[in-house]
């Protein structure tokens, strides 16, 4: 049986509303909220990581070469990374 | 049931007196309550504390308005508060004073039995401080048989530790020296 999104009846509510499966919020792809996506121009990137630090969603990660990219499953397109990136390496572009 | 009201000044140990007396009575297998006058204690200000002692379980939890016995720890209090207020006519008033009764009498609104002891002098001599709470316990026990003297030893030893013996000596002296007017 497919897992229910939430308990249907009060009897199905876990004691104390405990969520026994940690990290279940990952199933919720907030990336669908996005109207604009961040695009990195790695020729301008100085690998300072400020985008990574400021991302409120925690969805930016560093690759093996030290450049950064957002996980578009979760990026809401808020643009904070682009706003904070002082070398101007990140641009927000409209979703199609 | 015997109801006792203690008058003292904040810091003179009236609350300790009622605790020692209650513990002594409970130690004898009796029932007892000891409680303060339910409020903020202020050093030097007149304070009250209370005891009830009985052979059966005590249900009464109201304050004591008609005591059988009143004990006054501090000689100066009789000019500040009516220590005999509500005291039963057949009751007993025990005062700490070094004065003869004729000098004390004008301040006392009570015609019943009154006992005097110079507890402050005893406390100075035996304890080196003018704190009369344990001393006055001796006078109370002598005048009322509310508990046995030996029943007070354990609570006082537990409470006072290395100065317990001095307190027991002071108590014994008051037991011997208290006199009915």
């Amino acid at each position, binding site marked *: 049986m497919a897992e229910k999104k939430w308990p249907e009846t*009060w009897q199905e509510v876990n004691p104390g509303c405990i969520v026994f499966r*940690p990290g279940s919020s990952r199933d919720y792809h907030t990336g669908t909220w996005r109207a604009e996506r961040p695009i990195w121009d790695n020729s301008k990137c100085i690998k300072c990581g400020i985008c990574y630090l400021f991302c409120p969603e925690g969805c930016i990660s560093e690759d093996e070469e030290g450049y950064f990219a957002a996980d578009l499953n979760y990026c809401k397109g808020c643009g904070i990374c682009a706003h904070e990136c002082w070398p101007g390496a990140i641009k927000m572009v409209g979703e199609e | 049931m015997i109801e006792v009201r203690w008058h003292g000044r904040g810091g003179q140990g009236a609350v300790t007196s009622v605790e020692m007396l209650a513990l002594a009575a409970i130690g004898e297998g009796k029932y*007892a*309550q000891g*409680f303060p006058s*339910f409020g903020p204690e202020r050093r030097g200000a007149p304070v009250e504390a209370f005891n009830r002692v009985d052979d059966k379980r005590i249900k009464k939890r109201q304050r004591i308005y008609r005591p059988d016995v009143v004990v006054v720890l501090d000689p100066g209090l009789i000019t500040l508060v009516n220590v005999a207020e509500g005291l039963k006519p057949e009751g007993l008033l025990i005062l700490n004073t070094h004065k003869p009764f004729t000098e004390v009498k004008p301040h006392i609104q009570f015609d019943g039995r009154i006992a005097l002891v110079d507890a402050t002098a005893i406390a100075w001599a035996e304890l080196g401080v003018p704190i009369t709470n344990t001393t006055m316990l001796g006078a109370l026990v002598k005048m009322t048989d509310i508990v046995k003297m030996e029943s007070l030893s354990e*609570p006082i030893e537990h409470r006072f530790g290395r100065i317990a013996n001095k307190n027991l000596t002071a108590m014994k002296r008051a037991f011997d020296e208290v006199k009915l007017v």
Partner: protein
Amino acid sequence: MSKRIGMEIALAAAEAAALCRPDVIAAYPITPNTHVPEHLSEIVAEGRLDAEFITVESEHSAMSACAGASGAGARAFTATSSQGLLYMAEILAIISSMRLPVVMIIGNRALSGPLSIWNDHSDIMSQRDIGWISLFAANGQETVDMTIQAFKIAEHPDVMLPTNVNLDGFQLTHVVEPMLMPDQEEVDRFLPPFKPFAALNPDDPVTLGALGLPDIYTEACKSREEVLLNSKKVILEVWKEWEEQFGRKYEPIEPYEAEDAEVLMLTMGSMGETAEMAIDELRKEGMKAGLLKLKLWRPFPFEELKEAVKGAKVLVVTDRCLSYGGAGGPVALEVRSALYEEKKRPVILNYIIGLGGRDVMVDHFMEMIRTAAKADAERPEKAYEIYGVRE
């Protein structure tokens, strides 16, 4: 074996709590409950109890620390009064919603203002609807017993709810009196170690205190309500076990001379025993008077109340708290609701007594019952009366 001791009741409550081997004690002192955490800190410092004593900076932190400790699977204890309880308020409901079986002693005290350190029940009544189990002690012995019972009730797998034990400030907390104090072996036999159904543990993570969207909040409330109502069954079981082991009987409503009583008085807390003396006096005069002492406030014992008042013509409910702008005291409100649908029910009078430390004497109880007896057949004019208020 239990030992007969003389002790200040607040200290005895601390001793009883220590016998339950709490892992964490987080408390902030406030009159008249100060002696409870103070004495527990001594017990921990002396090495008699292996517990983490957290000297928090406020009651809000005390209850928060208890939440964290209990969530991590520790047996947590705290104590407070009055404004301290109100300062905890934000966390109180969270604790019950997360089903954390924290035990708290409340040395009941009036709420400011005017500023009062003296006793009434307005502190706990302001936190009536937070989903805790609430017990009320009438004397020192009940304080000791209920403190120990509270852990067993709270931690029962069918309950897992926080529990508070209420004892009247000063009226009980500051009185030295005799009590039977169980020993460690007896308490260990009565109270099994705490087994949380889930605990915060990095090796087996869970989420506590998650968001509840409108889709689930109603069901979460219903689940809480059911478990609190059903806890009565466990409370009765635990009290039965207590009686079997210690010989002292506990009931949600303890009757005194109530069987053939035409006029019944209901009290909660330390005034019950003084009221018993009034009943004795009135019985001597030939009045069929009786007393009901309410010990279980939440969950409210509806069935037991209906049964207890069946034969009475008049029921005098005393309250130590006023529900401002409402129809009297919280106990009377509950009693009236409980009996409204009954075909045969007594005339109910409500006296608000003992606010902010106002002394209530045997004579006062006698006067209340005598006045109430006259109300038989005729309904009282007012829903409630503040007894003895100067006009």
